[in-house]
């Protein structure tokens, strides 16, 4: 695998519960580059719990500019439960020129059938922003006892997406939280993509392609919380055609970004 890779899920700053070997941005970028990852869509761990999300987004932009080496694309976070969240969205689009945003509905306390989410999705789509939805950050079984967060239920997307034409959704860590049999319904509800970071099972990519088209599958590592090598080895574990491999590793993500 020598072709360049687009990683749609990395995260900067500090995971709240432990230090991670690659949680300094220069070290992360060096690791990404050493594995042929030429672009990575970066959110911030600060976005999970910080109320001053505007400063978390500002730091994310700053960090990507200072240490990103042209690899990191900042994906700011908007929390629609915060007062005047529309201004955060405006800054992401207008001031920072971001290509997308990353949402954490479970950490921010709303469900996808909340009218606030519908409005956020509508406004983000009008601003041509990709909307990443992280369905889970980690395994619920080992969460901190004082911070147990259920995975996001993505079923409301089925009814919502037809009402928001042009919406581009990238689900993060959903291939563990969304059962494979209901995946076609979710992926088919609109322009919905999923990435491989938390995909499991022997020959995982081969298996999941029986439930969704290869054109909707993206490369995501969930580094630095996960070892970067996990996603890289998954594309080796499953026997894939060159077309599937190029699509998953790069072309699908490039197409989402260009739209």
């Amino acid at each position, binding site marked *: 695998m020598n072709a360049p890779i687009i990683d749609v899920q990395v995260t900067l700053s500090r995971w709240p519960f*432990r*230090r*991670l*070997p*690659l949680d300094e941005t220069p070290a992360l970028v060096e690791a990404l580059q050493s594995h042929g990852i030429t672009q990575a869509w970066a959110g911030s761990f600060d976005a999970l719990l910080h109320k001053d999300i505007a400063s978390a987004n500002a730091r994310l932009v700053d960090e990507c500019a200072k240490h990103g080496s042209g690899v990191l694309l900042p994906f700011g976070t908007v929390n629609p439960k915060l007062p005047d969240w529309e201004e955060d969205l405006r800054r992401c689009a207008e001031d920072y020129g971001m290509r997308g945003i990353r949402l954490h509905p479970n950490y921010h306390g709303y469900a996808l059938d909340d009218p606030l989410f519908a409005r956020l999705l509508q406004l983000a789509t009008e601003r041509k922003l990709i909307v990443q939805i992280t369905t889970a950050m*980690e*395994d*619920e*079984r*080992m*969460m*901190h*006892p004082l911070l*147990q967060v259920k995975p996001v239920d993505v079923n409301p997307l089925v009814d919502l997406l037809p009402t928001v034409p042009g919406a581009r959704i990238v689900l993060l860590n959903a291939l563990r939280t969304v059962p494979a049999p209901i995946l076609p319904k979710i992926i088919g509800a609109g322009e919905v993509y999923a990435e491989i970071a*938390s*995909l*499991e*099972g*022997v*020959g*995982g990519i081969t298996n999941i392609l029986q439930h969704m088209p290869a054109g909707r599958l993206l490369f995501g590592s969930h*580094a*630095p*919380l*996960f*070892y*970067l*090598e*996990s*996603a*890289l*080895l*998954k594309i*080796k*574990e499953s*026997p894939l055609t060159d077309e599937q491999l190029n699509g998953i590793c790069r072309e699908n993500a490039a197409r989402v970004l260009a739209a």
Partner: protein
Amino acid sequence: MLNPPAEIWDLHTHLSGVPGRTPDEKMVNLLGFAERMGIAKQVVFMGMEFSYEPTPEKFRQENDEVLQALSHYHDRAFGFVYLNPKFEKESLDEFDRCVVNGPMVGIKLWVAEHCNAASLDPIIARAAAHKALVFQHTWIKITGNLPGESTPMELAELASRHPGAILICGHCGGDWELGIRAIRPHKNIYADLAGGDPTAGFTEMAVRELGVERVLFGSDAGGRSFASQLAKVYGARITDDDKRLILSGNLKRLLTPILEAKGVKV
């Protein structure tokens, strides 16, 4: 990912979760994926369908499935015998059938009984007498363990009663930051890296707190991918020599006495 490539022995694989209708079909598929990932040898345990509290009939059937799967691949795979300590006599008989008089080299205990229970003692003593490895599943779930599901703290109790046994802490308790601490004082407990998310820092902490000799690579395939689990070793900030010990050297060292006793060249 190492140069030259590391020899890899996988401590922890299953027939369940692998495509195929028979043990033989599943084994072919499992080995096919393993080969793509450079895995030379693997340990297999439990049958085509898992059972929390197997009756003696059920664990015998599961072990028969593993024996069948192994039958064509004694050069590439080893088996551990699945037992239920709630059936002490039947478990000892099954150990004799599959380990003493058969090709298997260890025991797998899952969630039928807490591993600090006295009912384990004769089984662990018999395993130690035959140099068989004892793999005990453990997890610490903030969402609640299964009724008979063991923790690493319970395994530590068992270890202090059986200092001569080779005990493996399955999944390192899942919540590995707790599991590693719980087994740390007991030099005869080894850490299985398998079966949880590839969370960065796990392997580094295990090596730091236990010493590299006590850390073993396992995948828990087919439920898990080989990729996510190998990443825990390849991605760790440890030396290449340490990676080689974890990927095969340590397991080879632990299995050598029982394999040699069976006349298998290592």
